[in-house]
């Protein structure tokens, strides 16, 4: 540990504090600089890599890098094709963007928290959280964007009238007595979709981060504890590879499913 802490809770607190810059009055007008900067860098790295490969993409014999990218693209494309049967060509790029970005943001969890804190400290930065998806703002931003896209897709495919009508006549049927229940049901669905979408990812990654921190606290109990902490951290990191990829996959799948559902006629 680079800095010494008074208590375990202070250690954890320190690692869970955002680098926040206020830009206006009130609690909302603040920016988590660490989240925004890290996620932007990761987005540029991920999409930039894809873009570089795309620029040199050939329909002949692909290079190994291109084959790898095509594997990921083909995987996303298969998922989209099996779930979404509409006309839009944007669902697949959305899914790919979500997958690549979320994988990279989740993967920041693999960076050892204390070593990263030390490195950030050299630049005079304290309280820098590396994992953007452990910030509820990021996951909600993604989930609400998908939610907005879902509504846009719905209105585009059914028209504003058809979409509004469906709020009242689905899923129980078109009868004036059923309208309130239908509407209530739809509202619950609308609220639950982005909520479960974002909180699932946030919860998993945040919990993963906390467990890394808790395991890291063993290091406070001396040399043996440090070694023990290293072993445990390694084990959790290996298991975390699964969580990182699985959560990104689930997030992508839900994105596709929600967009498909938005367009679907009841």
């Amino acid at each position, binding site marked *: 540990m680079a800095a010494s802490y008074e208590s375990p809770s202070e250690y954890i607190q320190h690692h869970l504090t955002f680098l*926040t810059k206020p*830009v*206006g009055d009130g*609690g*909302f*007008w*603040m*920016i*988590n600089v660490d*989240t*925004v900067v890290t*996620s*932007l860098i990761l*987005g540029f790295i991920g*999409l930039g890599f*894809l*873009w570089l*490969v*795309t*620029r040199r*993409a*050939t*329909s*002949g014999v*692909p290079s190994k890098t*291109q084959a790898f*990218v*095509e594997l990921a*693209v*083909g995987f996303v*494309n298969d998922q989209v094709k099996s779930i979404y049967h509409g006309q839009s*060509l*944007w669902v*697949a*790029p*959305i899914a*790919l*963007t979500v997958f690549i*970005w979320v994988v990279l943001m989740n993967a920041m969890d693999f960076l050892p928290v204390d070593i990263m804190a030390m490195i950030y400290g050299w630049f005079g930065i304290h309280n820098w959280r590396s994992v*953007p998806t452990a*910030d*509820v*703002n*990021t996951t*909600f*931003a*993604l989930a*609400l*964007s998908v939610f907005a896209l879902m509504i846009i897709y719905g209105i585009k495919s059914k028209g504003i009238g058809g979409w509004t009508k469906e709020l009242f006549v689905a899923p129980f049927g078109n009868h004036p007595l059923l309208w309130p229940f239908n509407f209530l049901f739809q509202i619950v669905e609308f609220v639950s979709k982005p909520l479960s979408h974002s909180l699932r990812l946030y919860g998993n990654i945040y919990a993963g981060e906390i467990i890394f921190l808790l395991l890291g606290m063993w290091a406070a109990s001396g040399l043996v504890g440090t070694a023990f902490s290293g072993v445990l951290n390694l084990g959790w990191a290996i298991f975390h590879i699964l969580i990182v990829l699985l959560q990104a996959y689930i997030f992508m799948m839900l994105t596709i499913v929600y967009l498909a559902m938005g367009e679907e006629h009841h």
Partner: protein
Amino acid sequence: MNFNLTLIMQAVAFTAFIWFCGRFIWPPLMRAIETRQKQIADGLAAGEQGRKELANAEKRDAEMLAEAKARQAEIVAIGEKFKAETIEQAKIDAKAEGDRIVAAARAEIEQEVARAKEQLRDAVAELAVAGATKILKKDVDTKVHAELLAQLKRDL
């Protein structure tokens, strides 16, 4: 869990990333993949076509080979027949030639024999004349006795 402006910024970044991906990454990559898929499908179809053509060619080949073999057998049969006929003819010719040679030889021999007889007759006549001359101790006039001698020669 406190929401702040980060949410908006992340949503804006997300939208921008989606736009970039859907504009510059997804279409060219899919185009490359689909072009390759088409090329592979075309290649496979061409291979299938080639295999079919090869099978056809092999069939044609076998037919031509069988035909050629039949023709060859026919030619061999004709040749053998011709050979046998030629040999037969040669034998007949040779026999005829041999017979002719033998006949000629025989005729010659007979001729020789006749000539020898003639000479012998002459010699005998002369010998007889000479003998008679000696016996008569008197020259026999050959001219006078020519008739006689010719008679003698004929009788011999």
